[in-house]
């Protein structure tokens, strides 16, 4: 798309389309900002941890083309939450599995909701 389209629509887009590729990217992005606003961490701490996460992923073979950026963002968010004592990785894993379970049992097209039996 041309840059005139960018200005015409007024939407922040790049050549790849909308600013967030998938809804989870937007949610992960927003949670980091919300925690920063709540005073949980300084943005300098965030940037340092994100840079470290990107280096680590690169060393582990991530192509680091920018397309996997929000995976690194999410990994940073999980690490930050653990580092600040807001939760621990077991709990995050448990809730992650619960949501995956909820997604599996929910018929296509229905909103996915967490139920006690998922945990």
């Amino acid at each position, binding site marked *: 798309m041309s*840059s*005139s389209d*960018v*200005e015409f629509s*007024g*939407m*922040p887009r*790049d*050549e*790849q389309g*909308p*600013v*967030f590729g*998938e*809804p*989870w990217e*937007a*949610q*992960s*992005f*927003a*949670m980091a*900002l*919300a*925690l*920063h606003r*709540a005073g*949980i961490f300084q*943005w*300098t701490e*965030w*940037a*340092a941890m*994100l*840079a470290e996460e*990107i280096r680590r992923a690169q060393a582990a073979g991530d*192509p*680091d*083309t*920018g397309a996997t*950026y929000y995976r690194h963002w*999410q990994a940073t*968010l*999980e690490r930050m*939450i653990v580092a600040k004592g*807001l*939760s621990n990785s077991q*709990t*995050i*894993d*448990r*809730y*992650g*599995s*619960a*949501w*995956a379970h909820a*997604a599996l049992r929910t018929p296509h097209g229905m909103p*996915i909701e*967490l139920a006690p039996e998922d945990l």
Partner: protein
Amino acid sequence: MQARVRALETILTEKGLVDPQALDRIVDAFERKIGPRNGARIVARAWSDSAFRARLLADATEAANSMGFSSPVGAHLIAVENTPETHNLVVCTLCSCYPWEVLGLPPVWYKSAPYRSRAVIEPRAVLAEFGVALPPDTRIRVWDSTAETRFLVIPMRPPGTQGWSEERLAALVTRDSMIGTGLAKRP
């Protein structure tokens, strides 16, 4: 990944640390309100109003605030002006620090390893790939963004735009021209 993200949202919401509606408002703002048009309006005003230009170069954080654009993470904004002698190019070598309040979220290429490393090592070659050919005697300055300091490039005003309104001028200011990987469009 979706499940991991939802897991965090559940945990943080249960602890009262985030409010799902507040998250939606953040996403909505980044999808609809915060984008390169903000920066384009600043540049167009700087082109038309020399007092504003001076203010922007002296303290871009304050000048952007005066137009209602402030950093969501409290970062300082520095405006760097392109001239026939100097072309400015912005990168974040470590991650992807970017002046969100004036440009929105960064494009994918800005976050890629090749751009992050090559912009510093061989800026002229990178610019050529973006289709920007500068005169050989134009100096290229590369600015490395940090969590605390972000940069906005003021591209050169294209010739043939005397007397244009700010609104008309703003339409010439592309996102890439404010990162330094492009030039303002010609009328």
